[in-house]
């Protein structure tokens, strides 16, 4: 494995860390789901973790969201707590044990969102300084309109924080959402080079994207494992089995 972040305590990690990033509606969760299925079908030890999903913090975050009590820095530290809990409980030990860990959003989501909400970007990066650098960070690049169409189909309403209403960009949730997501895109784009993103054109067909994703993943798997895996074309199951409804983990 390549050298990881010097500040982390899992430098001797045997596992592989793959993360997907991109705005809501970029299709990243669908791609991660298909990657997860494929790796499992090849008999690998796989663990998937999602942004803002730790039991410890979830309840507090949702209470705070309901009351709109959360200031940007509180919001930022709650997400960091959530991340640390998943990191200490799952990500770090499983990487040590040789798992392929798949993360649906990683520290880059915090870097982008917290900065857009008004936190210092240097400070946010320091807070997450303990996180291992991923072996691959896929960034699903998509025009704002494409993503919005995917997200808004069949959804009459956007949630307060999801739409970035706390930023006071616009009184209209849809306008606010668009501006918020555009700013997030700007942040992803500016991080892309510095953080070694593997950029995927997310306007392509799902299957085409998945082919590229699998090839890239093959290149970072330990040779002994990669050799066992045949390069088979992705078998796409019915779309309904994939978590297409995004936007719940803001």
């Amino acid at each position, binding site marked *: 494995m390549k050298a990881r972040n010097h*500040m982390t305590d899992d430098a001797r990690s045997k596992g592989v860390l793959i993360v997907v990033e991109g705005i809501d509606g970029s299709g990243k969760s669908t791609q991660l789901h298909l990657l997860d299925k494929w790796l499992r079908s090849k008999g690998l030890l796989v663990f998937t973790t999602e942004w803002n999903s730790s039991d*410890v*913090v979830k*309840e*507090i975050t949702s*209470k*705070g969201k309901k*009351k709109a*009590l959360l*200031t*940007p*820095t*509180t919001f930022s*530290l*709650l997400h*960091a*707590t959530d991340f*640390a*809990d998943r*990191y*200490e*409980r799952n990500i770090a030990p499983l990487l040590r044990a040789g798992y392929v860990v798949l993360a649906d959003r990683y520290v880059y989501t915090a870097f982008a969102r917290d900065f857009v909400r*008004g*936190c*210092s970007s*240097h*400070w946010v990066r*320091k*807070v997450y*300084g*303990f996180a291992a650098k991923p072996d691959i960070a896929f960034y699903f690049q998509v025009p704002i309109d494409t993503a919005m169409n995917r997200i808004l189909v069949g959804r009459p309403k956007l949630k307060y924080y999801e739409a970035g209403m706390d930023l006071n960009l616009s009184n209209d949730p849809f306008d606010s959402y668009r501006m918020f997501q555009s700013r997030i895109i700007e942040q992803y784009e500016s991080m892309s080079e510095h953080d070694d993103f593997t950029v995927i054109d997310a306007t392509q067909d799902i299957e085409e994207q998945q082919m590229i994703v699998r090839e890239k993943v093959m290149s970072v798997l330990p040779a002994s494992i990669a050799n066992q895996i045949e390069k088979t074309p992705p078998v796409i199951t019915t779309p309904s089995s994939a978590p297409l409804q995004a936007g719940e983990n803001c």
Partner: protein
Amino acid sequence: MLAHQTKPRTLNFYGEGIPYLKDVLIKGKLVVIEGPDGSGRSTQIQSITSKLESDGHAVVNTGLKRSELIGKGILEAKQRLPLGKKTLTLFYAADFVEQLEHKIIPALQAGYVVLADRYIYTLIARSIVRGLSSRWSHELYGFAPVADLVFYLDVKPDELFHRVFQKYGVLDYYESGADIGLAPDLYDSFIAYQTRMAKEFSVMARQYDMIRVDGNKPISEVNATLQEKIDGYLNSS
């Protein structure tokens, strides 16, 4: 005696600060009393609060684990399952910043004397004593405003043990460092933990301009020392 109307000033932060609060103007003062459980903090804060109020200062008290939203959550989470060191450290930071933004900064803007029953220093020391990077622990709290006066009630670990035991009849699990396995025996663990905490405080005392107060002395003597310094500061600034 009431201090003269102080000139509004912007917040001064320890590190990167909170960019969206950089133009906030404050008139109040932030006074912190640090020290371990059993050092007499709460007693001193009660008495100082009464004295300041009778002198005409508006006072707000704050402490750790008191935020409306997160404070309760930490207690519940700790009871349900053990938390990792980084998780706990960040949880405390989230609790702290909630109070900072909802209580401390608004009170400072309104011209209150904020009397804090511990501040970021205890949180930083706990994190470092539990083996997390010292640099990371300090930088995490780079969003905290610089306090005007910081006292540290220094009490010998052995004396602390007796005070805590007499007051509560039992030792607190975390305050004895039982979660980090310093010693098989709870007495040894308590002494070792408190010794390490005191060492971190002596390092921080220089870095953060803390005033060390000998907390082994009688309550009234400690109180006289604190009150004199606080009055002197409030009347001179």
